[in-house]
């Protein structure tokens, strides 16, 4: 549950009354040694599946993350004992060749051998939960109109469910992490809007595809920690690097998840 209302409200009010102000500042930040980031997913939609490897850059560099080639990657369905070796189809992108469609309930493993180091991960694909419908909410707060897509679905009672939402606006993926879990909502019929803000540029007339993933707990924990860092309103007193579910000392994560999608036009 996001109680960001409170912080947002008071600072928002002060900003509006002209007493407070915001400005871009240039900080003296240290440089970093590039670190490897591995992102991989197995879904219950049609294969192939991909793994992307990039490196990190300094804060004031451009958002261009150098791809990493030459990794030896394997994925395995540990439940059915089926493996596949991925081939690099474009710089930094490795694609499965013969891997079967992901099956909910199965456990998947990732093995990456790169520059003399080995990285492994395990993820179990949860049982699917499907979207019933998607509606839109328009909220007018502090002079800004924000459109928020609202998914409608039934949370299965009695089990811990973790959800990730991905939005495609006019077929372009919005690079933001939206999450939900049933810790406070087990068994409820969910109709919580996704907390988009005006920087996401959702306008009436746009075609929006909303994808709901069911992810496992380690992936949810990882992505939750990512969202705490990237959400400018979160104000965590001690941001730290998220706990990756990939062992070996790299950034990124490996997720085996189901997908339920709905496309509609924003009214």
């Amino acid at each position, binding site marked *: *549950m996001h*109680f960001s209302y*409170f912080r947002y*409200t008071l*600072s928002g*009010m*002060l900003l*509006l009354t002209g*007493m*407070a*102000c*915001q*400005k*871009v*500042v240039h*900080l003296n*930040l*240290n*440089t*970093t040694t*590039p670190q490897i*980031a591995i*992102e991989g997913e197995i879904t219950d939609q049609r294969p192939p599946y991909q793994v992307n490897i990039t490196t*990190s850059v300094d*804060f004031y560099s*451009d*958002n261009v*993350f150098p791809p990493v080639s030459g990794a030896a990657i394997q994925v395995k369905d540990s439940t059915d004992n089926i493996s596949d070796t991925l081939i690099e189809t474009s710089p930094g992108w490795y694609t499965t060749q013969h891997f079967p469609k992901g099956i909910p309930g199965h456990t998947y493993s990732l093995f990456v051998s790169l520059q003399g180091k080995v990285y492994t991960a395990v993820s179990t694909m949860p049982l699917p939960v499907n979207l019933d419908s998607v509606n839109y*909410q328009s909220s007018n707060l*502090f*002079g800004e109109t924000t459109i928020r897509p*609202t998914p409608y679905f039934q949370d299965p009672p009695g089990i811990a469910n973790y959800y990730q939402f991905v939005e495609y606006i006019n077929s372009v*993926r919005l*690079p933001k*992490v939206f999450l939900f879990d049933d*810790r*406070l909502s*087990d*068994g*409820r*019929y969910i*109709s*919580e809007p996704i907390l988009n803000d005006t*920087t996401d540029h959702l306008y009436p007339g746009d075609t929006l595809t909303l994808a709901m993933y069911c992810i496992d707990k380690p992936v949810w*924990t990882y992505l*939750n*920690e990512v969202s*705490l860092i*990237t959400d*400018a309103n979160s*104000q*965590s*007193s*001690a*941001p*730290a*690097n*998220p*706990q990756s579910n990939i062992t070996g000392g790299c950034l990124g*994560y490996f997720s085996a998840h189901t997908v339920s999608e709905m496309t509609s036009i924003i009214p």
Partner: protein
Amino acid sequence: MSIIIPLPQKRFLFAFLPLLLFVSRSFAQTHHTIDGTVRDAKTGETLIGASVTVPGRIHAGVTTNAYGFFSISAPDGAVTLVITFAGYVPDTLAVTLTQNLTLKVGLTPGESQLQEVVINAGRRNDNVIKPITGVQKLTTSEVKDIPVLFGEKDILKTIQLLPGIQSAGDGNTGFYVRGGASDQNLILLDEATVYNASHLLGFFSTFNSDAIKDVTIYKGGMPAEYGGRLSSVLDIRMNDGNNQKFGVSGGIGLIASHLNVEGPIKKKKGSFAISARRTYADLFLKLSHDSTTRNSSLYFYDLNLKANYAFDDKNTVYLSGYFGKDVLGLKDLFGLNWGNATGTVRWNHVFNSGLFSNMSLIYSSYDYNILINSNNDNITIASKINDLHLKEDLQFYINSVSKINFGIDVIHHTLSPGIINTSASSSFNSLDLQKKYSLESAAYVSHEWSPGSKWKINYGLRFTVFSVFGPGSFYTYDSSGNTLDTASYKSAQIVKTYANLEPRFSASYQLSDPSSIKFSYTRNVQNLHLLSNSTSSSPTDLWVPSSNNIRPEIADQIALGYYRNFSNNGYEFSTEVYYKILQDQIDYKNGAELIGNENVESQLLYGQGRAYGLELYLKKKFGKLTGWISYTLSKSERKFQDINADTWFNATQDHTHDLSLVGIYKASKKWTLSSTFVYVTGNPVTWPDGKYQVNGQAVFLYSNRNGYRMPAYNRLDIGATLEGKKTARHESSWTFSVYNLYGRENPYTITFRTDPKDPSKTQAVQTSLFRMVPSVTYNFKF
């Protein structure tokens, strides 16, 4: 006493005779006790900390306690007592002592001190003599002349101008004392604990200066009667009320107004005081173009009530109450209100001249309520902490150089972390988080003693027992936070007990009349902890008691100080160094979920802390220009196994330099000008050095916790008060002030994001809360 002298040694009798005579004369010189109360002669307000001395035996003086009571013994015969208190004309009383005597002393307020070089017995060197280190007292006259935000006088903001006490930042509740966290300060209003002493996120404190008589802050050597928090005790006493005539005073300001009514219940026997304050900040919101802002509410109010009645010379009863509330509302979509309520009943009883008792029954509570009413959600959240407190304090004045203080202190805490109610169509379940019950008891004894004319020692011991009770389920966790074991307890069944001894020792040695050195060692234990993992504290932060998982926090502090007064006590100078060791400090796992979490104790990490520093303080007390300079050089660090690879790192409370300059200039009979300048090193923060890609989004990469620092904070405030015509019936004044005169954009937060105008870049954005803020207030008094 009889001496048996064997006959053969009779000749020795002559040698003994002078000795016998000497001894018998000493025994024949009996002592008696003079006790009494020191009050303001015009209003009847008891004066706390007034000095009562017998000239010539100055080291044998006493100060009045929190009820204005003193007791001093002297040899029979002619005795002269000198009673002094800052801001009052000293009084000299001559009595012939033949039996125990009770006096009623009334001091007349002194004229404003315009003359600098006057030999004045009213100038005291208490700060030099008093054995306690790290203690500071503020009078309301000092608070009233210092300009603060929106022209409101504010005790909490003013104490942050003293050495060793630092603000937690603009718009932040709380303050740090000697490198400790903001929940480590015990804030007492007439002995009741105030859990959240701030309004509107720390812009104002909950203390209406109209209602306050005395403020004492202990940063170091706290006497054994205080306990429960590690870093400081802020002991605030309310006005009793004028027991001779009725009076009304108040002020009307841009943001808030306040009104004070006081008067006698029965002339010179009892009085009452009522103070109220309310802001109307939301009036400004009505001017906004935005409809949400126009329909929002933002206000707070305070109500202080006090009444007292002296049944006879030996018995007085006091009733105090405080009620305050903050309301924040965003149209009908969101509402948050929070507030404190305290109530105290106290009975002072004087047994005989030398034994004073105070029995207090105290109720104190803090609660907050949230209402969310948007889309399909109709959610209410209520959280509350309730204390029932019984205290018995006895002060035994043995003789003029020795006083024993002992007592017991028992608090029953009920903490209700949250009751969440949701509607059927809401996406969230209703939830009743388990209530927590605990008992915090203490027994203490301390001895204030002056062994010789140069030494003053205050040593004592506080024994505390903290017990956690059922009913409820109590969990234990593994290091990953998974529940290992659940144990069920019945009502009033003990789950866990922590017993601790807290030794307290402080001493002062007078080097010369105006100078002394002081030393103290204190141990403090804290059993209530405030959990908050966001940059600024919020009224919804969670209080938790020690438990089967959370151990009590312990602090050991030593301090050494040198005190010197100049120009016949016209200037006070002091310097102190301190070193503090903190154990069982609490921090949070990455991404810790503190809200609505029955297993919140699985989200915590435990470690150590240390803080040390040097404080310098120079104060000018008399003359046209008064004020002070305070400078603190300090460091505060923490060490946790899971943070920064178990190495010492700078704590959030670490502010290397903290400089405050306060000046009050009485330009003429009508005009008083004041100014404050503050410079503080920025606090340590965790900032990214790099970034990487997740789901196409730039995610920031961090190396160490608190490896960077915020820019330094500095600010200049000015104020001017114009006194209106003063008649016997009516006084008025105008106060003008400018907060942050040169409009420096002191950072409130610095956050990171992808540039909304250029998605190929990331940038840092700084938010500042207040630039230049002028204000006007009109004050009146009948």
